[in-house]
């Protein structure tokens, strides 16, 4: 497809389990972002990749959160030892623009809804 694809769309995890969320950005998009959206809130920035380089991870809430984009395309967000407060929709977005380009349009996926019991 032509859009940003995320999987799984829904994930239920027991507290303490590890989860992995996948993002397939639009082909050729340089920038990739992860956001966390809690119920009733706007998306909160987690981390930013330009190609395979993670240039900003200032929004990751704890060291249980880890993201990678090893080949500069697909990205995985991993959450270790999940807690109830991790329950949220995790959004992935991609953009043609690189860091020092004029900001481009971010194209968002539909998100992965994580529920931690």
């Amino acid at each position, binding site marked *: 497809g032509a859009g940003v694809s995320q999987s799984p769309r829904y994930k239920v995890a027991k507290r303490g389990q590890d989860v992995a969320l996948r993002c397939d950005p639009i082909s050729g998009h340089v920038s990739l972002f992860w956001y966390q959206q809690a119920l009733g809130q706007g998306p909160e920035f987690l981390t930013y990749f330009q190609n395979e380089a993670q240039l900003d991870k200032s929004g990751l809430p704890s060291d249980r959160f880890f993201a990678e984009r090893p080949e500069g395309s697909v990205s995985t967000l991993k959450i270790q030892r999940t807690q109830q407060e991790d329950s949220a929709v995790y959004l992935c977005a991609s953009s043609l623009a690189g860091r020092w380009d004029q900001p481009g349009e971010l194209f968002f996926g*539909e998100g992965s809804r994580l529920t931690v019991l």
Partner: protein
Amino acid sequence: AQSVSQHNHHVILSEAASLELGCNYSYGGTVNLFWYVQYPGQHLQLLLKYFSGDPLVKGIKGFEAEFIKSKFSFNLRKPSVQWSDTAEYFCAAMNTGFQKLVFGTGTRLLVSP
């Protein structure tokens, strides 16, 4: 710290009414401003954006926004809403060179037919 605030959390309008959603930002330096929309069950989509130049920006579906630097505002407007405009609207901002889009908390708009 950089922040974006949206004043209205829920707005209910009748079809053909005019719409204005408030957005204020707190940023230093050159700021780029955006409005995104999320229709029920769909992903976030860009409505319009402001980088520089004419402070009145026109977007898709008849929406427009005005950048008022002195008021740190970027309010979204539409002269006549339709039922299909029912959605959640997010204002967002970014500094050039820092690829971090900061969102407001969103405004849920319900348009009754």
